[in-house]
C-alpha cells in the first residue's frame, strides 16, 4: 500500500464529493423559485423540521443557559464583575452557542429524519414512482425539505438563545443572587445589533449546510436498509464537522 497514492485517491474522492454536492446545491437553488410558488409544501416542512424539534431545542437551550449562568458567575466572581453575567451569557449564546448547538441538534433530530425519509422513499420506489408520474422529485420533495430546513434553523437558533438567556438569568439572578437590574441593563447596553447579526448569519449558513447535507445523503442513499442507515449516520457526522469548521471560518470573518 502506497500511502501517497492512498492520500491522493482519498483527496480526489473528497473533491469529487464536494463537486457533486455543489452541483446538487445549484440544482436546488435553480428549482427554488418554482418551489416557492407552492409555499404550503414548505410550510409543512417548516413544521416537520421546526415545530417537531421545538421541545429538544427549548430544553437544551434552557440547560445550556443554566450551565452558562453557573460557569459565568463563578468566573466573573473572581474579578468581582458578576453583574456582567447578562452580557457574557447573551453574547455567548447569541453569537456562538445558539447557532452552533442548534445546528448540531438540528442535524441530529431533523437532519436524520430528512435523510432517512428520503432514503426510504428511494428504497421503496416512491421517488421512481414520482418520476413515472412525470413529477420531478427534486422539485416536489427535495426542495421544499431543503427550504424548510433553511427557514427553520435561524428561528430555532433564536428560540434557543432566548430560552438560554432565561436559563442564565434563572441561575444567575434567582439562585446565585446577581442583581436583576444589572443583569438586564448591562446586557442591553453591551450587546449590539452586530452581535445579533453574527448569530443570524451563522444560523442561516448552518441551516443551508445541514439541510443540504441531509437531503443530499437521503436522496442519493443506497436503496437498502443498510444504505439508509449509513446515509443517516453520515448526515450527523458530516453536518457536525462542517458546522464546526464553518463556525471557525465565520467567527474569524466577523472579527
Amino acid at each position, binding site marked *: 500500500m502506497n500511502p501517497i497514492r492512498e492520500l491522493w485517491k482519498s483527496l480526489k474522492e473528497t473533491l469529487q464529493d464536494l463537486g457533486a454536492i455543489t452541483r446538487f446545491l445549484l440544482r436546488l437553488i435553480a428549482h427554488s423559485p418554482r418551489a416557492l410558488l407552492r409555499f404550503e409544501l414548505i410550510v409543512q416542512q417548516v413544521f416537520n423540521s421546526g415545530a417537531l424539534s421545538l421541545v429538544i431545542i427549548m430544553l437544551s437551550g434552557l440547560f445550556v443557559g443554566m450551565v452558562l449562568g453557573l460557569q459565568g458567575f463563578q468566573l466573573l466572581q473572581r474579578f468581582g464583575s458578576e453583574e456582567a453575567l447578562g452580557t457574557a451569557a447573551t453574547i455567548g449564546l447569541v453569537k456562538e452557542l445558539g447557532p452552533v448547538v442548534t445546528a448540531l441538534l438540528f442535524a441530529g433530530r431533523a437532519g436524520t429524519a430528512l435523510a432517512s425519509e428520503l432514503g426510504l422513499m428511494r428504497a*421503496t*420506489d416512491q421517488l*421512481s*414512482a414520482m418520476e*413515472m*408520474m*412525470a*413529477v420531478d422529485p427534486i422539485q416536489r420533495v427535495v426542495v421544499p425539505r431543503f427550504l424548510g430546513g433553511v427557514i427553520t434553523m435561524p428561528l430555532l437558533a433564536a428560540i434557543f438563545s432566548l430560552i438560554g438567556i432565561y436559563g442564565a438569568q434563572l441561575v444567575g439572578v434567582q439562585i446565585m443572587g446577581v442583581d436583576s437590574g444589572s443583569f438586564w441593563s448591562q446586557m442591553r447596553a453591551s450587546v449590539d445589533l452586530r452581535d445579533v447579526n453574527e448569530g443570524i448569519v451563522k444560523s442561516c449558513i448552518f441551516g443551508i449546510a445541514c439541510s443540504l447535507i441531509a437531503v443530499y445523503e437521503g436522496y442519493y442513499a443506497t436503496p437498502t436498509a443498510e444504505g439508509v442507515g449509513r446515509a443517516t449516520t453520515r448526515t450527523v457526522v458530516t453536518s457536525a464537522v462542517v458546522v464546526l469548521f464553518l463556525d471557525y471560518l465565520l467567527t474569524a470573518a466577523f472579527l
Partner: protein
Amino acid sequence: MFAGLDMDIARGRVTAIMGPSGTGKTTLLRLITGQAVADSGSIHVAGTDMRSVRRADLYVLRQRMGMLFQNGALLTDLSVFENVAFPLREHTDLPERLIRQLVLTKLQAVGLRGAAPLMPAELSGGMTRRVALARAIVMDPEILIYDEPFVGLDPISMGVILRLIRRLNDALGLTSIVVSHNVQEISTVADTVFLLSGGKVVARGTPQELQSYPSDVVRQFVGGLPDGPVPFHYPAIDYFSELLAQGEDH
C-alpha cells in the same frame, strides 16, 4: 445486458415479458420508460426515441403512461385518496369536486372506494397494488406497465389483479406490458408473450404457442424445471478440487 434484443409491442394488447431472474426484465422496463438510457440500439415508445428524448418531452410522454411498481410505491405520507389524486393535483387545475369524482371512480374500478381514507400502512399487499393501479390509471394513460404485479400476493389478490389487468386493458383501450414470472397466471390474460433469456428474446407468441415451443429454455421455464439451459449451480471451480484444497481461503 442485452444483445440483439428485438421486440414489437402491439397497441391495444396485453403483452407479457417473462424470463428467468436476472435476465433483465426490469431493466428493459426502465429502458422503455426512460428511467435508464441504453448504450446502443433504439427504443421507440409511441413514436418517441427514448435514447434522444429531452427531459421535458419525457415528462410529457410519461403523462401518457402509467406504471405499477412491484411494491406499489404509494406515497406513505398521503392517504389512499390523496395518493390517487396526486397526479391530478400535480398536472391539472381541476376543481376539487371533479378531482374527488375522478378519484372515487378509479377507486371504484379497483374495488377500493371504501378504503379512500386509509393510509398506505393500513393496507394489505393486494390492496396496495390495487390503489397503485388506480393511481396509474387516474390520468387515463395509453400505456400501462406492470412490474412483477403478483409478487407476494395470495391467490385471491392475484386473481383480482389478473382480472383488473384484462378488464382495464379492454375497457380503457390501453396497451399493457406485464413483467412477471408467473407462467400459468399470466397466460390467462396475455395476448402475446416474450420470453427473454441471455439478453435476447428466445420465444415469442401466444401463451398457447409457448406451451409447445421447441426450445429447451422455454421448456425449462414453462415447466419450472430446476436444471437445464439455466443451470442450478452458480459457476464455480470443480467441486472435489475445492473440497480437497484444505484450508485455503476463498
